[in-house]
């Protein structure tokens, strides 16, 4: 009897059921806190026609950029593509459908999706291309646009530590979009650096409760740094 034990033993098992043309929500900001092995597994599976929801799309040769290389992505919903040349090339050439979405709106779309809220009003994007085709409404003299929530067939998440029940703790700014992504997947898959027994994590310190998590896997991570900036000691 597995009960609440969410641990799976292979990446193949972790991403089982991911099929062509599905929507995948991914945590991470730049290359920080990305589910790097789950992305590699999607590359290995050669799943096609994916819609990816993520703040960024990795860099050319790491993170979600790997899926761009293999043309596995049909559409991406992201806020910033500045550091990815292949992304820009595919977008300009019309090979990739892109829905540029303000970062805070993107986070809230995931949060709302996971929380059962179908849409929300925000002032962000009013009067800009983001507002095109969206309902506008005035509250207290200010203009707002209606933004629909996002859910995914899968959510892929990177956390620092988990117990076997899928309660999650994130580390530093690797948290970013991961907690929202975790709530918004029909199947949420989480990879972590350490798995402990239930009861070992302080319930007061859990960032994401295990109810959102379907599958959990222990990984090892490269944690590539995008902009290595240091000062002299």
């Amino acid at each position, binding site marked *: 009897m597995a009960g609440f034990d969410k641990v799976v033993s292979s990446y193949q098992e972790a991403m089982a059921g991911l099929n062509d043309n599905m929507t995948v929500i991914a945590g991470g*900001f*730049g*290359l*920080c*806190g990305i589910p790097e092995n789950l992305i590699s597994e999607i590359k290995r599976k050669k799943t096609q026609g994916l819609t990816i929801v993520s*703040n960024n799309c990795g860099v050319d040769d790491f993170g979600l950029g790997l899926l761009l290389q293999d043309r596995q992505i049909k559409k991406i919903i*992201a*806020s*910033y*593509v*500045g*550091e990815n040349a292949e992304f*820009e090339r595919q*977008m*300009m050439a019309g090979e990739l459908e892109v829905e*540029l979405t*303000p*970062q*805070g*709106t*993107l*986070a*809230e779309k*995931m*949060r709302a999706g996971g929380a059962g809220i179908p849409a929300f009003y*925000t*002032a*962000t*994007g*009013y*009067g*800009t*291309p*983001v507002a095109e085709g969206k309902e506008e409404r005035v509250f207290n003299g200010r203009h707002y646009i209606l933004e629909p929530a996002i859910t995914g067939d899968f959510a892929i998440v990177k956390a*620092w530590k988990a117990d076997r029940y899928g309660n999650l703790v*994130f*580390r*530093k*700014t*690797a*948290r*970013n*979009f*991961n*907690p*929202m992504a975790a709530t918004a997947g029909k199947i949420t898959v989480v990879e972590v650096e350490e798995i402990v027994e239930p009861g070992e994590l302080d319930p007061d310190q859990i*960032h994401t409760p295990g109810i959102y998590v379907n599958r959990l896997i222990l990984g090892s991570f490269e*944690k*590539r*740094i*995008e*902009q*290595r*900036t*240091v*000062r*002299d*000691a």
Partner: protein
Amino acid sequence: MALTREQIAQRVAQELQDGFYVNLGIGIPTLVANFVPEDIEVMLQSENGLLGMGQFPTEETIDADLINAGKQTVTMATGASIFDSAESFAMIRGGHVDLTVLGAFEVDTQGNIASYMIPGKLIKGMGGAMDLVAGADNIIVTMTHASKHGVSKLLDQCTLPLTGKGCIKRVLTDLAFIEIKEGKFHLLERAPGVSVEEIIRLTEGDLVVPASVPEMLV
């Protein structure tokens, strides 16, 4: 002389107040952190989920899990807190950040700002900029006054896709400090050694020039 990037940052830093929570955008705004007056405390918000951003790490303390919104490795200041992206933008959208400094390609006399794409040429994405300009009341835009070819970026009407509509009130360029109100640019200060005539020549939108325009102290 036009201000250097550092001098622009230095002038922005004069607008900081003790106890301010401040969001600094990528580029010149990031440099503002180097000029915080010693007698005040400010806390830097980084929209990827850090309030209380510290200086860059040393080789020994570098941590891949700790970056700023520009994806640079950073450290945490004493009293810092970490949160997720939804919480971060609740702070921003909810108007809790005291000062926002960000760059732009163009601004206009209606307070519109364009900063995230040049159709057919450059697509970067808006990142957090649309949320920041919509959520903040106190915003300073830092930018060059005109292109290398002398084409003004302070316009009657922005030509590029907008990042925000009617939300910009203050612009600091390499030539001038300008306020936007009642559909016009108002010249507040000029860079040391830069003439009012040069600023007028390089400002396309309506510019109100008072009888005397003080030089910036940088």
